[in-house]
């Protein structure tokens, strides 16, 4: 006999209230986590979305990418050696849109590679968030440091750097705008361990992100917010399941008195926990995805499947701990105690 289900069916309101609380707590966690991830992505999606690989900066740049310079002969030899090697340069700047409004962007120039779309001189590919600012394909944007104009060739999704939308330009335009003749750093895709080049320092993707000003501090704050929330939500989860079961000590005592196995009582508690948690999580995942769809584009929100699964597993695990802890209390209870408590 499925006691867990029968109890839930009979006490619908009670379990619905409990499920609603679990739904609200998990929804809060999903939303905050999505916002934090969105903010993090807003800072460095350009780098985050690159495949695994290694970055190389000149040692004298002291781990500051915009002080780094790659010697052209090194750049050439590396690209010749491994064709998917990319030489990159990033500079914060701005463009004037057709309405002469100034828009902040992160100019990115890169050597030919399948990772970045090809851009001819006089062309620009923008992050799709610029569409919201009224820009469209074929529009002309200008920069005071560049003699010619830039024609918007297209848009790319979710490419941001230091919270600014990326503007992918040709290397020649970049050199003219910033009066330089060298690229800033090299990216070599691949899982293999980094090679050593004299005068250059190697960074993994994670290490490179740390060199972006303010990235580290921002990430620490965001991670702190998310983990505090997960811990507090988790504790609330565990407390709710614990309280729900401890309140029923009288009932469990009677069931033990008539000879029900303690393992069946544990199964009853775990089944209820699983049913409540899974139905609440399904609702909160659906609600957070709906939020993702209707949230304004300016609001960075990113809730990936892996984050959703990770958080759901944390909730299941904590719910399981809460139910098990109360089970241990119930295991200790003597049937006689329950009988002496009077009618349940």
């Amino acid at each position, binding site marked *: *006999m499925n*006691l867990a289900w*029968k*109890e839930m*069916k*009979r*006490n619908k309101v009670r379990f619905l209230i409990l499920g609603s609380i679990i739904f609200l707590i998990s929804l809060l966690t999903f939303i905050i986590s999505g916002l934090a991830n969105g903010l993090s992505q807003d800072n460095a999606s350009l780098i985050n979305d690159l495949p695994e690989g290694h970055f190389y900066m000149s040692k004298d740049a002291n781990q500051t990418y915009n002080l780094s310079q790659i010697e052209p002969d090194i750049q050439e030899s590396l690209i010749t050696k491994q064709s998917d090697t990319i030489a990159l340069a990033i500079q914060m700047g701005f463009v004037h849109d057709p309405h002469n409004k100034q828009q902040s962007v992160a100019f990115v120039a890169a050597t030919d590679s399948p990772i970045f779309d090809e851009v001819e001189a006089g062309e620009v590919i923008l992050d799709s968030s610029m569409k919201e600012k009224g820009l469209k394909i074929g529009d002309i944007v200008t920069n005071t440091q560049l003699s010619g104009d830039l024609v918007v060739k297209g848009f790319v999704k979710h490419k941001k750097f230091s919270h600014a939308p990326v503007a992918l330009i040709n290397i020649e335009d970049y050199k003219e705008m910033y009066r330089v003749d060298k690229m800033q750093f090299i990216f070599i895709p691949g899982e293999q361990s980094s090679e050593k080049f004299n005068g250059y320092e190697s960074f993994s993707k994670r290490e490179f992100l740390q060199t972006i000003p303010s990235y580290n501090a921002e990430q620490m704050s965001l991670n702190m917010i998310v983990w505090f929330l997960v811990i507090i939500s988790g504790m609330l989860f565990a407390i709710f399941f614990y309280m729900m079961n401890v309140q029923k000590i009288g*009932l469990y005592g*009677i*069931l*033990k*008195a*008539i*000879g*029900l*196995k303690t393992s069946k009582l544990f199964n009853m508690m775990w089944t209820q926990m699983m049913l409540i948690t899974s139905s609440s999580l399904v609702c909160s995942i659906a609600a957070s995805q709906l939020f993702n769809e209707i949230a304004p584009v300016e609001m960075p929100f990113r809730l990936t499947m892996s984050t959703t699964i990770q958080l759901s597993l944390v909730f299941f695990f904590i719910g399981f701990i809460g139910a098990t802890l109360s089970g241990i209390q119930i295991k200790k209870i*003597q*049937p*006689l105690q*329950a*009988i002496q408590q*009077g*009618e*349940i």
Partner: protein
Amino acid sequence: MSLFSINQIRKTFTNGEVEEEILKGITLTLKEGEIIALVGASGSGKSTLLTIAAGLQSVTDGQIIFEGKNMSAMNQEEIRKIRASQFGFVFQFSHLVPFLTVEEQLQLMLDVSEYQLKKDEQKKEVNRMLELVGMNHRKNAYPSSLSGGEKQRVAIARALIHQPKVLFADEPTASLDSKRSKEVILLIRQLTKDLNITTLMVTHDKEMLAFADTIVKMSDGVIVHKKESIK
């Protein structure tokens, strides 16, 4: 023939530094189909004796022999198995499971006792037992909609559905009015005799004593008087 024997049972409770002996060497034998009534003043140890005999609490010293096996030397799981399959319980309160219907209360007991019946036979058995206690018409009702007497009838049916060898009843009529008490007494008497179930009950009810085969009077943790009925 002796089914159940209680040999020199002692039970001591410790309250802080004070040790109190509730049962002081009780010896009692229960024959198959016999109804034994335990009587005595409050605090005489009759309920403690009943719960110890039923395996609901441990003894400090002494032996409880059920069908030749020493229950006092068994572990919790072995005692649970005996409780589930060989014992039935009726308490002062019905202690029905609030979220199960009358019919489900009995089905649960059949599941717990691992009474080997097919599903349709199980249903028939439940109906038969509900018929015996006069509750068939309320088989889909939940405990919250039953009167005290009805609840106690269901509790009796639950205690006997798996055909236990011993029924333990702790003041089963204490929460009922005199009319309902009489009904419940007659029901216990009739069913235990029909099914040849040994009964150990604690009671203050004089009418109930009239049906007992043996009346055991306790005082201060000892048996002071034992009287067998002439019936």
